[in-house]
């Protein structure tokens, strides 16, 4: 059975939603407190869940990167382990240097919490392999600092290596940018395609009665590898 390990920092608030989502899909889960200096040896996916680690003090994710568990996370990731950062988890992974770029304050300066359409840009990776390129999925976003920034040279590298995974669009897949993100980018991965980060919350899109179950196809990709 797939084992999903979910990190919990002071201020994390999506760990139980994430746990519920993966358990619904049949995975075994374990929540690991940030003081732990190791992660379970049978982990097949490590999730850095959303929330407000350390109250977003200084910058979102800036202090979490020094938590004891992060050394184990880097080792796990550098050995090819699969890592998924959702929302604050994405911010933590960029601050820790495991993913390129940074997340700035939303251009409109407001916290945005709503369902948003996303277009699949590249499905040649374990995260999006259950979807097709140009598929449009409906996934909630909830962030204040979701404005992805990367300089033009590194942006080109992202495209050249098929690291741009998801973009914000309307329901027809046409560009629609809620937060000022460079090229409307909502999610990326590293060059080796084992570390994934996105601002939207697939773990909150598991039931049609709650607005969308498009998150199922995204999270399932991790469970069948």
């Amino acid at each position, binding site marked *: 059975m797939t084992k999903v390990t979910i990190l919990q920092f002071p201020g994390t608030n999506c760990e139980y939603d994430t746990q519920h989502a993966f358990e619904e899909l049949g995975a075994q889960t374990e929540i690991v407190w940030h003081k732990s200096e190791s992660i379970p040896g049978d982990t097949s996916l490590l999730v850095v869940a959303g929330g407000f680690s350390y109250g977003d003090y200084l910058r979102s994710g800036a202090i979490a990167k020094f938590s004891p568990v992060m050394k184990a996370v880097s080792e796990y990731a550098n050995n090819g382990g699969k890592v998924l950062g959702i929302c604050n988890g994405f911010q933590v992974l960029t*601050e820790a240097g495991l993913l390129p770029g*940074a997340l*700035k*304050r*939303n*251009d409109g300066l407001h916290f945005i919490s709503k369902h948003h359409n996303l277009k699949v840009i590249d499905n040649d990776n374990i995260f999006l392999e259950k979807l097709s390129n140009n598929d449009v999925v409906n996934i909630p976003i909830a962030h204040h600092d979701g404005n992805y*920034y990367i300089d033009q040279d590194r942006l080109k590298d992202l495209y050249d290596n098929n690291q741009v995974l998801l973009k914000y669009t309307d329901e027809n897949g046409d560009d629609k940018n809620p937060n000022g993100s460079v090229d409307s980018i909502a999610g990326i991965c590293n060059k080796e395609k084992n570390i994934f980060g996105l601002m939207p919350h697939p773990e909150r899109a598991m039931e049609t009665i709650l607005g969308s179950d498009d998150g199922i196809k995204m999270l399932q990709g991790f469970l069948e590898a």
Partner: protein
Amino acid sequence: MKAIVNVSLKAGVLDSQGKAVHHALDSLHFNGVSDVRVGKQIILKLDETDNTKAMADVTKMCEELLANTVIEDYEIELV
């Protein structure tokens, strides 16, 4: 001694807060402002008494934690 660290978004990185403040100043009829940048100031009280060492220490702090050099620049002043 004290170190005053000013962190701001790099030139070329859009400063939305600066833009909003600029807009607000305009609506208050302060028309002589051509640009606004919003940053943050971090004040550190240091035990170190040697300026060169203090500068080296604080630079390291900025690189590792106080600034995100992907999007931010920092300036250090020792007083």
